């Protein structure tokens, strides 16, 4: 699991004043929780079975193109 948003190398390195007075980073724990929940929410959908209507659509598209061909896949 790669961390998103690489942290700044070091605050002393060419940092602008605005960077210095930027609000403190969100609590690491909260941020970690958000990331985890986000992936969980997303993965939940990814793991759902593909609705038949979407697969049927692909079959239809395929048939339209291979009109005279006998279907050897269902």
């Amino acid at each position, binding site marked *: 699991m*790669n961390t*998103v*948003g690489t942290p700044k190398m070091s605050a002393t390195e060419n940092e602008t004043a605005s960077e210095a007075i930027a609000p403190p980073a*969100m*609590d690491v724990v*909260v*941020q970690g*929780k*958000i*990331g985890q*929940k*986000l*992936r*969980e*929410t*997303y*993965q*939940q*959908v*990814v*793991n*759902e079975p*593909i*609705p038949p*209507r*979407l*697969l049927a*659509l*692909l079959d239809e*598209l*395929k048939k339209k*193109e291979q009109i005279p061909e006998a279907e050897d896949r269902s």
Partner: protein
Amino acid sequence: MSDNPEFEDALVAAIPHMRAFARSFSSDVARADDLVQETLVKAWYSRDSFAPGTNFRAWLFTILRNVFITQSRKLKREVSDPDSIYTNSLSVPPEQEGHIELNEFYAALELLPVDQREALMLIGAEGFSYEEAAEICGCAVGTIKSRVNRARNRLGTMLDTKRPGPDASHPHQRALVRSRG
């Protein structure tokens, strides 16, 4: 990937991810799947425009996003209240024991502006690079970064300040209750 079976296989393999990304635009499952459905048709007929060696999923997500934008423009012309695209789609699956926490997170996600939610999904959930996400959304890398940051901060505030107690005090809970009716 112009070979049909190969393209089809890749397309089928990408469907679960397209469905997940489509939920950024509508939490209504049927409506989100409609987006996927139209995306599949578009992708099928424009498969020759996919450049081999580039990210297939990113290509599909770009199409999906365009489908959404086209649809919501159409809706905006037809419906006087463009926000209804989102408010009407606020349906959350029935709460089950143990899933409440995730539902709450889901509800918080729904409160984000769509551009922030989309950026967050691409970066934080789907794992695209900032550059890839910027390309999908047709905007600058810096824009994606700031959307993701704002999304994270807002979620952090929403989830952090949320205390156990009467849920009705939570604005989004009210929205949910309303949408059930």
